[in-house]
Every structure is written in structure tokens, then in C-alpha cells.
């Protein structure tokens, strides 16, 4: 596991060595800040503040953000030829993929933590439902991990970062849209199956309303593990060419 840790440290260093990490963080705070402000304005007279406001926004935003955060991770190694050195280092292929995945998740966690500022502001002016908010944050943290794992998979498949990002956006969008598809299917049982397969289906009606259910955690953990497993196999396949 030493290998995964070394790869993790390098990747985290890469995120923060480039200005892009800071630009993304700034853009995220700007967008969520505007969104929070708008919600707050509404909340003054007409409704209570939405406890899962930021997680709900991110559940859509991650369809586009996760691929951008992960497209570089393996595609660049392949294009630059450094993958050849990584694969001849005394570490397993799994450790390489895991280290990279964890670094992306770590960076995402920091981004998520930044948006906590809104909860602090909210708590200073009213008494928000913190339990509800925490559940939503735990949900979007797991949800984000899964989208990042999808991004890693497509980054492993191609050496072109744009193609990697495009393919993962496409898959994430389908997983996200699944809920809408579920809504127009008349066969109720089939509609429920479709909904249970989607990312949103395990978030909006559970974590986002303050529920933490084992089945949802199992869903995100399972999809993440599956994506990483395939990504490791894809990296391994470089040896057979």
C-alpha cells in the first residue's frame, strides 16, 4: 500500500501545484455563493432555507466537474509515457489507480469543505436543521466519489483527455438522467428498477431529505468499486499491447 500512498501524495501535490486547482475552487465558491444568496433572499419571507441546498446543486454539477477533475490522471501518464515507468516500478497496478482515485476524492473533499462556509453563515442568523444538512453532505461526498471513479475509468481507457472527459460526461449524464427516464415508464416495477440504478435515485429521496440508508451507501460504494476494478483491468491491459 506504500505505492498507493506515494502516488496519492504526488497527485495531491500536482493538484495544488497548478493554478487550475485554485481557479476551480474560486469558481465553485462563486457559483455556490450566488446560489446560496438567492436561496437566502427567498427564505427571508416565503420558505425556510433549504438544508441540502449545496449538495443538491452539486449532484448535477458533478456530472460535468468530476470528468474535468479526473481526465488528466491516467490519460496524461499514457500520453507522456510515464505510465511505462509506473508499470515497471515495484507497485501493483491497483495501487496506482487507487492512489490516483483517492487523490481526486481528497481534492473534492476539500472543495466540499469550502462550501461549509454557507452553513456557518446560516447558523449565525437562524437555526438550521444541521442533521439534515450533514446527511446531505455525507450523501454528496459518496456520490462525488462515485462520479470521480467513473472519470478515472475513462481516463484509463484513452490517452486523449478531451475524449476521456467527453465519454465520462456522457455516462454520468445517462446515470443522472435515469431518474427522468424512470418517470416516463408506465410499468411501475420497471420504472423502480431503472430508478434504483441511477445516481440521483439514491440521493434526492434519501440523503437530500436527511436520510442515511445502508442501501444507498452500498450502491455508491459498489459502483465506485466496480469502476475502479475495471479501471485497474484497463491499466493492466497496457501490458498486453
Amino acid at each position, binding site marked *: 500500500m*506504500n*505505492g498507493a500512498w*506515494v*502516488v496519492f*501524495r*504526488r497527485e495531491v*501535490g*500536482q493538484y495544488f*501545484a*497548478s493554478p487550475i486547482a485554485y481557479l476551480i475552487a474560486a469558481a465553485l465558491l462563486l457559483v455556490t455563493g450566488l446560489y446560496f444568496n438567492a436561496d437566502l433572499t427567498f427564505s427571508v419571507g416565503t420558505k425556510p432555507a433549504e438544508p441540502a441546498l449545496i449538495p443538491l446543486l452539486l449532484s448535477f454539477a458533478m456530472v460535468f466537474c468530476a470528468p474535468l477533475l479526473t481526465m488528466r490522471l491516467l490519460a496524461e501518464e499514457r500520453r*507522456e*509515457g*510515464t*505510465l*511505462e*515507468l*509506473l*508499470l*515497471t*516500478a*515495484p*507497485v*501493483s497496478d491497483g495501487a496506482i489507480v487507487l492512489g490516483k482515485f483517492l487523490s481526486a476524492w481528497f481534492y473534492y473533499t476539500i472543495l466540499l469543505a469550502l462550501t461549509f462556509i454557507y452553513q456557518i453563515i446560516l447558523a449565525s442568523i437562524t437555526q438550521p436543521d444541521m442533521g439534515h444538512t450533514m446527511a446531505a453532505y455525507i450523501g454528496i461526498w459518496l456520490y462525488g466519489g462515485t462520479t470521480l471513479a467513473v472519470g478515472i475509468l475513462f481516463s484509463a481507457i484513452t490517452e486523449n483527455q478531451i475524449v476521456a472527459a467527453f465519454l465520462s460526461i456522457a455516462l454520468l449524464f445517462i446515470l443522472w438522467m435515469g431518474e427522468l427516464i424512470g418517470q416516463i415508464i408506465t410499468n411501475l416495477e420497471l420504472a423502480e428498477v431503472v430508478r434504483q440504478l441511477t445516481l440521483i435515485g439514491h440521493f434526492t429521496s434519501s440523503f437530500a431529505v436527511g436520510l442515511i440508508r445502508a442501501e444507498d451507501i452500498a450502491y455508491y460504494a459498489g459502483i465506485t468499486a466496480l469502476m475502479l476494478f475495471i479501471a485497474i483491468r484497463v491499466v493492466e491491459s497496457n*501490458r*498486453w*499491447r
Partner: protein
Amino acid sequence: MIDVQNLSKTYGTFAAVDRLSFKAEAGEVVGLLGPNGAGKTTTMRMLTGFMPPSAGSARIAGYDILNDSLEVRRRVGYLPERVPVYPDMTVQGYIQFWANLRGVRDARRQTERVLESVHLLERRKTLIRNLSKGMRQRLGLAQALVHDPPVVILDEPTIGIDPQQVIEVRQSVRALGEKHTVLFSTHILSEAEQVCDRVIIINHGRILAQGTPATLRQQLQPGDHLYVQISGASSAAGQRLLAEIEGVQQVQPQGIGFHVRAAVRANLRGDIAQRVVQAGYQLEELRPVAMTLEDIFLDLLGREEGA
């Protein structure tokens, strides 16, 4: 140190490496010599544990490349042909990353030691993207040496850098042989001749010849090669005269004289001198021609194409 037995790599019906067998002892510098596409890189990729062989086996420092891949990788330093770097890392960060990944104890000190040895210590804070090509090459070498591996594998380390740096790289490869077993590939013959203790010539994935540069030259240069220059005779007359001499196999005009290939026999030169003078011409020059490894190589390749 390196023991390769019938190593093969096939892609479909195409054999990139075809039953290659050779050995390298500790402290030996072995050159893999061959034209582009001969199977040098594929061989190296199998030995470094990047790709598994289709058939055959190899042991490095006693470990099998397939069954003990991780142990092999711990004991091999590898510099691929296109030096792979992370442009956004500093020189020190890059070397330390590989040291850590390969489990080097006291990675920091080792990093400084190896950077010192490739003369990059004063550039350790520089971003790799700002290094020149030659410096990157030295950085790649440092990366391959940071864990002090018993076996170092270098894939065409002198490609694309200027002549001064080529000389430096050759010197450092030569120096590596004191502590490491070095396998390096090149398609430049004079380089193999200068740097290697032993040369293995491969083409189409097969070994054509192997030995020290000196023995290769001896083995593969059958007969005597002489340069003869005659004045007073027309070119055709001179050629006819020389060709009639006993033992001469081939006479080719070369410059203002002739290149004569003959079977080895006693007093060949004396006979040539005597015949030239008897025919009323003057012998201006008569000297042996040492075939360079280059000629041998082209000769071998030519024979293989013909076969």
C-alpha cells in the same frame, strides 16, 4: 545477472522477439545492437516487467521476470527511449517520487547523491519543463539509478542529444559498468564498440551474432582485406591483374585504388607486389583494411535479407 532463455514475443503471427537467449554477468556492459524495429525495445520491456513474454523465460538477479515480477522491478533501473517526465514537477520532486515509489530508505539523501552524480544538483528546484533535452536525458538516468539497482536497462540513451552530450552519456554508461550490470540498446555501431564489453546484434527479433567487439570483428571478417593502389595501369588492367593472383576472391575499385578480398594464405602481399612489378607497373600503396563493425553489421544484415 541477466539470464534470458528463448524469450519470445509474438503479436498474432508476427514475432517481434523470436527465441532470444543471452546472458550478462555482473558488472558487464552489454549492448543490444540492431536497426529500428529489430525487437530491442520489446526485449527490454519484457525484462523490466512492463509486458509479459509470449514464451520463454528470463531471470534477473535470480528472480523470474514473470513469477517474481515485483522483485525484478525492485532490482532494475529502466530508462525508456522517450524519457518520460512530469513537466510540472521539480527535478528533486521527480527523483524523490521514484525513490519513494521504489521503497528507497532515506530517499532524500539518495536523491541528492544521484542528482550530484548526473550534475543536476544545482538545478534541483527547476521545473522539469524548463530543462534542456540533454538535462532531461541525465534526469532520466538519475531516475533509473536512484534505487541503486544491480541491473540498469537503457533504451537508446543517446538519441536526439547533441554530440558533446552523447560523449558524456557514453562515458557515464561506461562508468556504470563498474557497479552495475548494464544492458543498453543502440543502432549506432561505433557507440556499441566504444561502450560495450559485449555486443549482441539482433534483427527481426533474432540474434545474428554476439561477442566482444574485437572477436566479432575477427569472426565475421573471413579472409584478408587489402587496399592496393597501382600506377601505370588502367583501371581495368589493374583489376584483371589482381584478380588473377592466387587466392584473390574479389577486386573492387575503391577511390584511385582497389579493395581486394582474399583467402588467408602465406605471402599474399609479396605475391601481389611481385606481380605488379613484373607487369611493369608501380605499386604505390599496399595495406590491410580493418573492417569496422559497421561493415560487419551491414554485411550480416545483407546476408540475412538475402537468405
